[in-house]
């Protein structure tokens, strides 16, 4: 009896673990399907996509759609705008946030708690709650459709969380290291630059990628303040590309190729910082 019990005990977990495994694979397929479908459609010619039965594997596919998308020229103009805006945002955010993180993690000063509180609250403000006012402000300052204007809005939107993220890294480096260097005769600034700064590199990279992703993907503010055709950022261009082809018969192959072009760099960068970003959002609630 004991042997038969042991056998059933061993077999049931096996069957159920197979079931759970199958379920997990099914869910994985479900979640990855839109991404797969984007790549699949991007490789297929429009004739195939217009048939009433979908083609699930891109046999005989080609890169024609990608060629067509990039040939239109508007893609590169949008790419230029996005690259400029994103670079300005990343550089400014990193330097501002670096100083800010230093202030709140290495100094105890009056108003520190209030500042942290304000940072976390501001970071949660929805863009839709302010964008009409920001639009007016930009219009009054003649900064509509300008790279500078939208960069200022992006820096303000991204810098709070960047400070919060970097602060975690700065706190993680013991002050004792700096103090030891100061005992050895370095000034506080020297100690910081030579000892702490190099150790912060991973934090700066993670925060930089975070700022990059935010600025690169942003849609809402851009929609409001970048209204002219020549000042479109990549997300706005993609939306416009889909709309312009929607008036005729939508060329989904090209739209998906365009989406792929926009997504691939983002996915690569995202995979680099994913862990850091989510642990920043849930704070000390998840350790390790």
């Amino acid at each position, binding site marked *: 009896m004991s042997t038969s019990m042991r056998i059933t005990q061993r077999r049931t977990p096996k069957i159920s*673990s197979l079931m759970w495994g199958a379920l*997990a694979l099914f869910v*994985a397929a479900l*979640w*990855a399907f*839109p*991404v797969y*479908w*984007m790549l699949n*459609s991007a490789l297929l010619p429009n004739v195939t996509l217009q*048939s009433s*039965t*979908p083609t699930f594997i891109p046999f005989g596919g080609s890169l024609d759609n990608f060629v067509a998308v990039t040939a239109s020229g508007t893609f590169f103009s949008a790419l230029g705008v996005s690259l400029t805006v994103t670079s300005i945002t990343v550089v*400014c955010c990193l330097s501002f*946030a670096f*100083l800010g993180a230093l*202030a*709140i993690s290495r100094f105890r*000063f009056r108003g520190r708690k209030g*500042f942290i*509180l304000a940072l*976390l*609250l*501001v970071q*949660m*403000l929805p*863009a*839709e*709650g*302010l964008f*009409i*006012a920001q639009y*007016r*402000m930009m219009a009054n300052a003649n900064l509509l459709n300008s790279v500078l204007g939208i960069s*200022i809005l992006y820096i*303000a*939107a991204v*810098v*709070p969380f960047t400070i919060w993220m970097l602060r975690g890294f700065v706190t993680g480096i013991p002050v004792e290291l700096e103090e030891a260097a100061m005992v050895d005769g370095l000034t506080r600034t020297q100690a910081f630059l030579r000892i702490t700064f190099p150790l912060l590199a991973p934090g700066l990279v993670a925060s930089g990628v975070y700022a990059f992703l935010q600025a*690169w*993907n942003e*849609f809402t503010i851009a929609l*409001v303040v970048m209204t002219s055709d020549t000042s479109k950022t990549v997300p706005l261009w993609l*939306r416009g590309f889909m709309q312009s082809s*929607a008036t005729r018969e939508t060329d989904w192959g090209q*739209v998906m190729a365009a*989406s792929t072009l926009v*997504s691939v760099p*983002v*996915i690569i960068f*995202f995979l680099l910082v*994913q862990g850091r970003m*989510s642990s920043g*959002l*849930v*704070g*000390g*609630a*998840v*350790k390790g």
Partner: protein
Amino acid sequence: MTAVQTQPEATPDSAQGTRSPHRARRRLSAPYILLIPSVAVLVAAMGYPLIWQVITSLQEFGLAQQFGQPPKFVGLQNYTQLLFDSYTWAVVARSLTFCLVCAGATMAIGIALALLMKRVHKLIRNILQTALLLAWAMPLVAAMTVWIWLFDWRRSVVNWVLTEAGLNFQGYNWLAAPLTFYVVAAIIVTWMSVPFVAFSVYAGFSQVSEEVLEAAQMDGATGLQRLLHITIPMIRPVLAIVLLLQVIWDLRVFAQIKMLQDVGSVPSETNLLGTYIYQLGTGSGDFGMSSAVSIFMLVLTLAVSWLYVRRMIREDEAT
């Protein structure tokens, strides 16, 4: 002897002594100086518009004012007008319902997937995690174009699959009626937000000690009992923070709704708070009213955010 020894050091010491009050003052102002750039950009890009918005929400500021007529102070008239406008209430009710349905579905599926990750073999877990990461990493606008294509009424995969399954969905236009419009929007928003919940909760599981779970198992607790009475209470801080974030994020689903509306549905029937403000501000040019709705939305989000921030600070002090 001590006197002799300290003597040579006295000179640098006293030199530092004369410098120290100056140094101390510099140290005191240092954090404020470090904060100047961040505070300046926040004041310029958020503080100023916020103040303008508060003032404008108390003014009549429509198309006439945009063409140069000075705005008229009307007190709380915009707000009372909103209060007695049934359409505003419809939009608010829709937004809250949409937010709660999406946040609820996201939490339930996210927790279920986190449990599933714990259950399955490492190889399968990696496959599942990679799939979730792909969905999470997709840029919003690109993801929206793909979903619009997936639900395209002429030849979408979704309609094809449903038709093959025996239901007649040939040529069915999901985005035409408000209800199915919201179903599609909710599916998309949930698809986008589940990975974050699943990963955060899964990370939370790693804090639950195996010994406690084993002890409970030896005492005869079933898997469900262990989950409800040990695991869930132990990861409550994570669950609370993740839920609050979902509520905040699902209240502001602008881009998703806007892009679905673009494809061809009646905006007035499908507006949520974000798109309503957008329509008031850019479409009708009624800055007074759109400011009032914006303020309402900000207050609503801040109320929920406040709970989140309080938790974050508590968790932060605990570490």
